[in-house]
């Protein structure tokens, strides 16, 4: 199928299918019949039945849509780009960042600032690491470029605060040492959300 079919704007020459909308009444008697038929057909009661069913299901089958947000939260997609997390190595508990500076280089809004030095073992150590969240556009390049999967986007999307800078302290972004077992590995770009299967529903076309 080429583009020609879409570029053809002459309505009526395409292979459109006409919906069967019935015959519209011509004479007065036909119109009267249509009104009488629609009056006694009881289609309106179908609507009443639908909402009543919805109410009964909502009340007794727990089929509510409401998420009481601050108290319960929906799982968010792994692709979601929220406040960054700095991950640790599971074996040693040391942070994964090797101080290569790629994230600082690739950052298109120049919001990552880092400084490194050699520690006593001649291993590169991150002495300064800040992300200016006033400028960060959450593009995700830093997470994509990181060779060690050290900087990833986390799940902290509630970023209302008096100062956005308070999210950017390196120690805060680092996953806590005592909760290393809870550290979530980055699923990668294109990962589906954990409840993706539940979210698949039949398109409600039927009435």
């Amino acid at each position, binding site marked *: 199928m080429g583009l020609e079919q879409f570029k053809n704007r002459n309505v009526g020459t395409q292979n459109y299918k006409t919906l069967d909308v019935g015959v519209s009444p011509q004479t007065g008697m036909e119109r009267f019949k249509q009104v009488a038929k629609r009056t006694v057909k009881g289609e*309106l009661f179908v609507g009443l039945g639908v909402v*009543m069913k*919805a*109410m009964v299901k909502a*009340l007794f089958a727990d089929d509510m*849509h*409401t998420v009481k947000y601050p108290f319960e939260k929906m799982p968010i997609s792994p692709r979601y780009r929220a406040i960054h997390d700095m991950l640790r190595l599971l074996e040693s508990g040391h942070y994964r960042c090797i101080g290569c500076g790629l994230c600082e280089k690739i950052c298109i809004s120049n919001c990552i600032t880092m400084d490194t030095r050699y520690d006593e073992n001649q291993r590169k150590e991150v002495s300064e690491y800040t992300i200016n969240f006033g400028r960060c556009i959450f593009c995700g390049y830093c997470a994509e470029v990181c060779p060690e999967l050290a900087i990833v986007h986390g799940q902290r999307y509630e970023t209302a605060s008096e100062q956005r800078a308070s999210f950017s302290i390196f120690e805060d972004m680092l996953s806590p040492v005592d909760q290393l077992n809870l550290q979530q590995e980055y699923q990668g770009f294109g990962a589906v959300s954990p409840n993706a299967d539940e979210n698949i529903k039949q398109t409600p076309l039927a009435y």
Partner: protein
Amino acid sequence: METTLVETLPHVTWVGVLIKAILILAIISAIAGFGTFIERKVLAWMQRRQGPLHVGPYGLLQLAADGIKLFTKEDIVPQNANKFIFMVAPIITAATAFIALAAVPVFPDFTIPSWIPLLGDTFVPAIAADLNIGILFVLGMMAAGLYGPLLAGMSQANKWGIIGSARTAVQFLSYEVVTGLSILAPIMLVGSLSFVDFNSYQAGGITSWLIWQQPVAFVLFLIAGFAETNRTPFDLLEHEAEVVSGYATEYSGMRWGMFFIGEYANMITVSIIAAVVFLGGYSEGTLGLAILLKVAFFFFLMLWVRAAWPHVRPDQLMWLCWKVLMPIAVINVVITGIVMMV
């Protein structure tokens, strides 16, 4: 036609009527407020939402929060409005709604026990003003209540208000004919305009209810009642998607609240009329529980319909009322007359 046994009833004093009036005012305003809560809950459930939840248990204190909000809001009168009419219009709606309730049997009658000082042994009647033309009075008062939206819309120097009041006039002219004609057939059968006579006519249990003799009139009255109370299939006056808020666009605070209370009091009035005229009214032995259930059903029906149905255009309303409902009502009256004569 047997007359109501006025002689057997205790003497109705003005104190009793006054107590009844205060009771109606207090209880119906409270129920109207509670009705908004019920409406929000039921609508929420029908849309698979929760409704008010967090203020008080089950969100019940949401009412109080809303009341405080309404009372403390600034009362704004627009610069170019006709100030006097603008300020009087909500009072018309609220007042006529409650005046209409004066002639309606709201709760069963009772006598204040004699150990209460000052008011002991006072007989409080079921109807504050037991008129022998009760139905006529109530319908007339509810019709007069439409002056509220009409004047409000025209006085507020707002285009949406003007459209809202124009729609009020359209709606008023359309449904009022149907209301009168639909209820005419039951009136012919009973031979009286008094609610007490209607109640005693249907005293013989469910089979003697007028809905079985007058199903068409019942449906017509229900439709007209929805139009009368501006409920959803016919809420042209203030439909948000079309005319912002219609006649209530410029209103804020307690003046808007008065429209609101008036609307809910009207809903209760129409529910009571439908229950008394068609569904047997208040039976003696059930402590007023029967009428309460019936009124609650009609109130719920209004919310139910609001959740389910879209609303009609003004021209569709006129078409429906003048070309469909009025002929049916007239035919119903004629057939009722023929059946009565034969």
